[in-house]
């Protein structure tokens, strides 16, 4: 465990953080507004950030509006954070080539990513990162593309001060403050940022910034802010551990109510920071002598996901929804020792018909004929 250093970065000096990252060779991504949402893109400095904006999120709706504060991070999250940066939505895994003697040769397609720094990552997404690290990055066969992109990642987290109406990270134990998995973490106040390190790399960068120590009043203000963020969350999961609670109710009639609304469109799984399913396909070249092997984001809401001869095991939407929620909240525990939900609320906001499973869970866990 690295010793934590702390310092206070005045708002006027915020740019220095970006400059330091550039000097260290990082391509620096930070939140920007695009198409009415907050996404992570390459920035040149704090002026590109969604300063003063707030996000209004409800099930099936996401909207940005001007807030009262001049803060950089007075919003909760956008549709994506780290997932597409590490687990590419579409990537070439290898190329197969037919040589002149008819033999096939295979060449893997290793990305050579520039080291990436990402500013503004929230606690929920750090928890999700820890889960996808376990899934893609650990074990005897780490995913090469993921591992390469992950290796040099520099993460600047931000304690969440303005959870959205859809957030419930308190009940999953993942937020609102960044707990681990970052290089630096920022607590934002009107006057600037309380910066703390979470890794040796972070400590070094903090040293280079040579910041004054934070005043105790700042620490107290941040603590109050976090308490407020906590108490502002109204949604919750009934329990952090629903192991066997859903798998034991496969025939609960409420699954049918969910299926009647669900579009089986895969938006929830696509925005879920812990969903990792993919499909693979060949893209043969026209000359017939080579073929690209592609990997793409898939979803348990597609037919291909459960396809076994002679057809999909989960043909109907109710089986697909049940699979998603039961895996995410129930038998994920058997695989990863915790639930697959980090409380970010994205699957609520980005569901086109606004399904809010935090409302449905108590019904699924209750008696079929009521409560």
């Amino acid at each position, binding site marked *: 465990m690295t010793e934590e250093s702390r310092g206070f970065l005045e708002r006027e000096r915020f740019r220095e953080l970006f400059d330091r990252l550039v000097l260290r060779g990082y391509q620096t991504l930070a939140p920007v507004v695009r198409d009415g949402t907050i996404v992570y893109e390459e920035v040149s400095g704090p002026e590109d950030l969604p300063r003063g904006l707030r996000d209004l999120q409800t099930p099936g709706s996401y909207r940005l509006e001007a807030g009262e504060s001049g803060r950089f991070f007075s919003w909760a999250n956008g549709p994506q954070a780290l997932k597409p940066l590490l687990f590419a939505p579409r990537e070439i895994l290898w190329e197969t080539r037919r040589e002149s003697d008819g033999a096939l040769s295979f060449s893997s397609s290793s990305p050579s990513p520039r080291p990436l720094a990402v500013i503004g990552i929230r606690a929920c997404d750090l928890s999700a990162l820890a889960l996808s690290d376990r899934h893609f990055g650990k074990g005897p066969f780490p995913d090469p593309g993921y591992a390469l992109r992950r290796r040099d990642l520099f993460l600047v987290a931000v304690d969440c001060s303005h959870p959205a109406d859809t957030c419930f990270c308190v009940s999953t134990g993942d937020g609102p403050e960044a707990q681990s998995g970052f290089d630096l973490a920022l607590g934002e106040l009107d006057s600037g940022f309380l910066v703390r390190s979470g890794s040796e790399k972070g400590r070094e960068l903090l040293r280079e910034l040579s910041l004054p120590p934070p005043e105790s009043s700042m620490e107290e203000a941040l603590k109050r802010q976090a308490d407020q963020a906590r108490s502002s969350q109204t949604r919750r999961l009934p329990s952090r551990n629903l192991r066997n609670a859903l798998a034991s109710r496969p025939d609960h009639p409420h699954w049918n109510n969910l299926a009647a609304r669900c579009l089986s*469109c895969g938006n929830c799984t696509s925005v879920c920071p812990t969903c990792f399913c993919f499909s693979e396909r060949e893209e043969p070249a026209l000359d017939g002598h080579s073929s690209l092997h592609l990997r793409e984001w898939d979803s348990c809401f597609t037919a291909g996901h459960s396809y076994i001869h002679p057809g999909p095991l989960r043909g109907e939407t109710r089986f697909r929804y049940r699979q998603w929620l039961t895996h995410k909240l129930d038998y994920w525990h058997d695989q990863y020792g915790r639930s697959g939900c980090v409380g970010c609320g994205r699957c609520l906001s980005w569901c*086109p018909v606004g399904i809010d499973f935090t409302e449905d869970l108590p019904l699924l866990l209750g008696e079929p004929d009521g409560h």
Partner: protein
Amino acid sequence: MTMSGSARPEEGSKTPHPKPRIAVLKLASCDGCQLAFLGLGDKLLELSGQVEIVHFAEAGPLGPLTGLDITFIEGSLSTREDRDMVLSVRKESRFLVTIGACATSGGIQALRNLASGPLLSSLYPSPEVIDFLDQSTPVASLVPVDLELWGCPVTGDQILGSLRSLLFGALPPVQTDKVCLECKRRGIACVTVTKQIPCLGPVTLTGCGALCPSFDRGCYGCFGPAENPETSSLARSFSGLGLTPSEITRRYLFINSNAPAFLKEGRRWQGGDSHE
């Protein structure tokens, strides 16, 4: 599905084989899907080196429709002549591939299937010279089709991807994903969630690369129903977004009105019946 017979040998043999013979035909259509071929540019030249394009009116060749390896058909069955041509070309083609909404579902002109009253006389001054079938129907309603490429129009990538597989003698994997998945892979903000724009993406097959949502428009359903399309739930959400029942009907009864899933949902909302 006709998948019998071995692949035409292309490799590993010293004796030269004739190039695979390809035809591109049209029935009742706008020619837009043929343009997907022409829009291939350099790839079309590369293709013409590998296959013999026997018949392709839009590009020039008008050779006889016999002994064909792959026949692409654009357009819906709308006249007796269309029907005769399809029956004949089916016998002459190893693979028959429909390209586009018209050939695959009946197309926008299938809206006439739903019209009541004397349509011909209301449109043409001399309706007696027009000889057409009662309905505009997809090619598969008449003969077995080996592969259906949806789209209005189809894209060059769909053509190339399937053509390569067919030249190997195999049917390509069929795309069944919904437009939503493509929006998310491309990082396009959902137009329904951010702007409350009604969008057919959740029930529509992808293949266009989520073109309309990338320009801030809802999906029009050009590529027809995706696998497992939850048309009713989406229609109810359209109602919640302020569409009237007749507007919901028009969303579904449009480019692919004759596709069963869209036809059923469109009819359900006809006459103001919302079936809540």
